[in-house]
């Protein structure tokens, strides 16, 4: 779990460099909640970091979809077989 460095905790905002350093851990939910809230605010306000975030989310979603697609494809193939077995009775 990523914690914000102690010296920077007093600052209410995070900067682009900090966000860039922990962005992928943030995407994976591996950042402490207080720090994560600050990152979320920064991502809403900073176009550059927001786009960077969006890009990595799209990549992660695309990869995750491969698993779902495989599950769905397997299920649909089994259902087609089931249909054949029904009609074959």
């Amino acid at each position: 779990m990523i914690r914000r460095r102690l010296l920077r905790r007093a600052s209410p905002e995070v900067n682009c460099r900090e966000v860039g350093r922990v962005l992928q851990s943030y995407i994976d939910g591996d950042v402490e909640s207080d720090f994560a809230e600050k990152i979320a605010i920064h991502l809403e306000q900073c176009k550059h970091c927001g786009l960077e975030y969006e890009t990595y989310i799209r990549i992660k979603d695309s990869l995750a979809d491969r698993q779902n697609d495989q599950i769905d494809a397997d299920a649909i193939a089994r259902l087609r077989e089931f249909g054949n077995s029904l009609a074959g009775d």
Partner: protein
Amino acid sequence: MPDSPTTELSQREAFDRYVVPEIDVLYRVARSITRNPTDAEDLVQDTMLRAYNAILRFDGRHPRAWLLTIMRNAQINRVRRKRPELLRDPDAAMERLADERSEDEGPEGLVVEREFDAAVETALHTLPEKFRDVVELVDIQGLSYQEAADILGVPTGTIMSRLHRARTRIRKHLESSGAFVNGRPA
């Protein structure tokens, strides 16, 4: 295929004509209703069985609507039997799914999405094996850093480092292949 009186078809022919082409849609609606792949598959099987038994009484008009009505009744019976307190409204789920599909899967959006996914797939295969293994475990299989570390026998820090570098490489590949511009699909 134009509507034709089911009475002219055998049970098998009618099933192949009206039910089999709808299996994909039935499964996706079932996924939306049940939120669970196993329950979805069971629900579609139940629907197909009911449809097969009733197919010779079907008039051949609007097969999808007919099948969704069967699915709706099957789901109500299943949930009442198993978990009455969790009865989810199948009509609302079907409407929600229709809305999601129309928003997310317009023809152009779908093409862009598929191109993006294809580029990610290509990028994944260009990764060195040790990077690809971590992506496979964390991003595709959904394991935590710790679970991936246990499987691969490396520290979690190594998992994080490899994963982040792998994603950065995928991102660079997407940029160089023109799969997206400025953070958005091209």
